[in-house]
Each structure stands twice: as C-alpha cells, then as structure tokens.
C-alpha cells in the first residue's frame, strides 16, 4: 500500500480526480456564495422583474438547483470514465485479481 503511494499510476489517479474535484468545488462554492451575498446586499438587482412575476432572485435560485443537478451528473460521468478505470486497475493489483472488492475482511483495521 505504502509503495503504491509513490507509483506514477497512483499519482495519475490522484491528479485525474483532483482535476475535476478541485476547480468544480471552488466554482460551485463561489457560485453559491455569490447567490447568498446578492440575497443579502444586492436586493435591487435580485428584485428586478424579468417577466410576469418572475424576478432575478427566482431565476438565480432555480439556477442553483440546475447547477447542482448538472455538476452531480457531470461528476458521475467523469468519474465513471476517467477515474474508476485507474482505481480499478490499481485495486486489482493491490488486492489480487480474484479477491476483488470483497477482499476487505482482512484489510487493516482503522
């Protein structure tokens, strides 16, 4: 296990995960914070009516839902294609091909 940590393939696994997770986390937190800050300090903008009774605040709120759903779907697809195959390879190598996921019974106790 410890030796694997300095294996270039592990490095690649970690980088491929972080390449998605880090920027997207910073992005959605900033996007959400912008929403909260505008709800507190930019009420003029938020109350601008776009059409009918629909104002910026409602559209911004619904967009938060849309971005959350969108990121969840994008991450599932990304992980499935770019992260899981690398992780599966390394796990198989570490635990032996036959044992697979159920090899954990003997795994180190926390």
């Amino acid at each position, binding site marked *: *296990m*410890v030796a*694997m*940590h*300095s294996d270039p393939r*592990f490095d690649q*696994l*970690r980088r491929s*995960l972080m390449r*998605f*997770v880090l920027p*997207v*986390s910073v992005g*959605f*937190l900033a996007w*959400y*914070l912008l*929403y*909260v*800050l505008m*709800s*507190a*300090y930019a*009420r003029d903008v*938020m*109350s601008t*009516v776009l059409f*009918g*009774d*629909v*104002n910026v*605040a*409602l559209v911004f*709120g619904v967009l*938060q*839902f849309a971005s*959350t*759903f969108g*990121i*969840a*779907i994008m*991450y*599932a697809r990304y*992980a499935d294609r770019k992260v*899981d195959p690398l*992780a599966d390879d*390394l*796990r198989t190598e*570490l*635990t032996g091909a036959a044992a697979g*996921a*159920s*090899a*954990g*019974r003997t*795994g*180190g*106790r*926390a």
Partner: protein
Amino acid sequence: MTTTASHALLAAEEVSSSSRTLTILVFIVMIAVTLGVTVWAGRQTKSAADFHSGGREFSGMQNGFAIGSDYMSAASFLGIAGMIALFGYDGFLYSIGFLVAWLVALLLVAELLRNSGRFTMADVLSYRMQQRPVRTAAAVSTITVSIFYLLAQMVGAGAVVALLLGIQPGETYLGMDADTAKIVGIVVVGILMTLYVTFGGMKGTTWVQIIKAGMLMGGTIVLAALVMAIYGFDFGELMSDASNASGAGQSFLEPGLRFGVEVPGDALQTMWNKLDLISLGLALVLGTAGLPHILIRFYTVPDSKAARKSVNWGIGLIGSFYLMTLILGFGAAALVGKEAITAQDAAGNTAAPQLAREVGEHFGGEFFGSVMLAVIAAVAFAAILSTVAGLVIASSSSLAHDFYNSVVRKGRASEHEEIKVARLSAFGIGAASIVLAIFAQSLNVAFLVGLAFAIAASANLPTLLLSLFWKRFNTRGAVAGIYGGLISAVGLVVFSPVFSGTEKALLPGIDIAWFPLTNPGLVSIPLGLLCAIVGTLSSGESNPRRFAELQVRALTGAGAEGAAKH
C-alpha cells in the same frame, strides 16, 4: 381577515373528528408496518457490520432514498413549506443551502470515506492518529451534533402530533388536552425510534427510511400536482396569487422577509442581520458533509461507486422535493392564507397539512379533505420517525464503536460485545432524549438544527478533509480542530441573542448576549479550521506511512470493507 381565521378554526373542529379517526388509523398501520420491518431486519442482524452498516448490502438507489429520508426531516417538510408560506422567497433560499451542500459530500467526502472507514466518521479521522484521544473527540462531537438535532426533531414532533390530531387549546381528545398530547407525542416517537434502532439496527432503520422516502415523495407529488391543477398548471398564476394573498406584495417574491432583514433606522442591526444570513448560508452548505448520521449512510453500500450513486439519487430526490415544496408553500400562502396558518401554529409548521385539507375539499368535498389531511399527517409523522431513528443509530454506533470498543476496551471487544453495547446505547440515548425533549418542549429550540449544522461544519468537516488531504495533519491537530470547532460553535450560541436577552430567547429572563449573530458559522468555521492547523503545527508528530496508506485506500478502494455475505 379575523373572521376568515375563526371560520377556518371552526371548520377545523367540524372535520376534525372524522379526519382524526382516519389520521390515527393511518398512524397505526404505518407503525405496524415499520415495526414488522424492524423485527424482520433484527433477525438478520448478526455481525457488527449488520448492526452499524446494514451489512453494506443496500443498492445505491436504496441508500439514496434513505439519504433523502434522513435529510428530509419533518423540519424540512413542514418547516420549509411553512417558511415559504409565511415569508415567501426566504424559505426557498433556505432550501437552496440544504441542497447545494450535497455537492461537498459528493465531490470531497462520500467515496473516500466509504473506501477508508468501517462504521463511523472517527474511523477515517483516527486512521493515522493516536486512537483514543481522536476517537473520544469524534464521539463527543458526533453525540453532541446528533442530540441537538434529535431534540429539535422531538420537540417539534410533540407539537406536530398534537396539531396533526387537531387538538385545540382547551379541548380534549381521548382524555388528552393539547399539552398532554404533546408529551404523548414525544414519548411515542421516542419509544418507536428506540425500538427501530435497538432491534432493527441499521438494516431496520434503513428500510424504515426507504418506506418513508417513498411516502413523502408520493404525498408531495400528489399534493403539488393538485395545487398546480387548481391554477391550471400555471406557476406564474400561483405566484401572483400567493404574493397578493400574503399581504407583502412583490417583496414576498424577493429575499429579505425572514433573513437579512433590513431594520429601518437601525443600520447596525441591519448589518448584523445580513451577516447572520451569510453565516447561516455557510453553515448550511458546509455542515451536511460533516453530519455523522449522513456520513454513516455511505457505509451501507457495497463500494464507493454505489456511494457515489446514492448521493446522486439523494440529490435528485432532495432537489425535486424542495422544488415541489415551493409549490406547497406558495399554495398554502394563496389557498390557506397567512391568518389561518398562524392561527394554527405561529411558526407555520402546519401549513402543509392545512393545505392538504384545503385542496382535498376543493376537489372532493369534506371527505376527501379529511383523507388528504390524514395522508399528509401520516407522511409528516413518518418523516419525524425516520430522521430521529437515523440520529439514534449514528450516536449509538459512535458510542459503541469509537468510545466503548476503541477507548474503553482498547479495540479488544468482540463483535457480539460491540453490538450489545450499541443496543444498550440506543436504549440509553432514546430514554435520555425523551426526558430532555419533555423538559425542552416549552422552549424555542428551532435554532438547534442550525446549531447542529454549524458544529458539523466547524468541528467535523475541516478535520475530515485535513485528515484525507493534508500529509502533516496529526493527533493534536485533529483533537484541537474538533474541540475548537465544537466549543466555539456552542459557546458563541450561548452568548447569542437566541440563548438570552430577547423575548424569543431560550432563557428570556437573563441577558448574557454579546455575540450579535444567531448562527455562529461565520466565526466558528474559520476558528475550527485554525485550531486544527495550529494544533498540527505545534506538535512534531507525523506519520507519512499511514497517510500514504490512507490515501491509497481512499482513492483506490483497496482493502475497503466489502458487503456481508449471508
């Protein structure tokens, strides 16, 4: 307007006898079914993995439903619908924080935790640290968060049960007046949650949660569809009707009626109110991924891919539920009206059941009104039961696994022993929370859920992330981070206006308030993180080998606990 309210109350009394019988009947059926499931699950609970993690055999979809169930408590079903009904847009704003928070859990926590831990949050925190101090700290924080959350739910449960049975002050039903009914409600909920956990373990609890999530989604979809049908499926029509009926006009559709309120002529209070909104927003978005009863759900699936899938199911369910809550809240504002809602419950917690009756009567007369009320009341009751059961199992697992086995018995307890202690703990926590909730029932404890999120965000999330990603992180850092976040969050609330100094405070008689915000997150989250960093740097301890091992396990899933084989 007063006549409308008294008319509504009168109508409530007229329908209440038939709808009460129906409500009680539905309650009894639901209790029987869930207890049956518990007995069945209890027979299959043999190993510690069965008790703490339901044998790790649930599918991603099943666990997604259970996650939704843990999260969509009565507080969010009744509370957010009521908040939208009374304050319009700000109720929606509240639900957005709750939803976006799931991305933190999805991207940074769920899979890594599933791969590297066994039963509790502390398994990951203590992986490369000295077991006893870290596990003790984690158990203290787990139990504090869970008990606060539990108390808020149970006190709410008492009030809600009394209201769902439609018992007005000064009136009795089955020999109970409203106050007795509240206590009976607390005791019944307390006994049921203890039974679910003690006998059914995680398996029983999870199935109870899956059933509840199905009921909740079904009930909400039907109710939301009926509301939309009244408005010819024109959401704009519903919105304008709601804002007109609210008496607040356009501002009902804008932020500012409930959070970050602008006080004319008091610039200082306006500033605190706005900072309070930001503080709440931070605690909500960062708290979810540190809630122990949510974290242990990731252990109930076979592997990290299923954990990911379950979070995505959870996001889908919770998100669509909150969007429908917007329809329910606006619907209640338009069709039931503020007067009638606050006449029943000042906080608006009965807006959704009242809406159900109103909509039912619109389509099928008095009888259908009673049926809809009974169904939504049962859904709310189920929502209370499943959330509290999740909280009890989180705290009893931590007591048994982290504190008893690792700290008291130094890891030498047998599985049989650990399960026995977990069952005893569930029993003890259940009994203690019944007593605490009865004493707290007259207090305004609504702030406790916000506090639980703030503690989770200040004490649990920073230490969890640092232990997964920071090589240098060590025992002193983890212990300082947990206690620092916990103490600063709880401490600041004690000196805040929700605890003393105002009429609505927990202890209105005294005034020790000097901290101006009602939610401590804005200060306590950075403070918790700072304590963890300073604690780490002040100690020379470092274990790069165990860190390497933890990261390899977390990322590849090698050595992860697999599903039980029966």
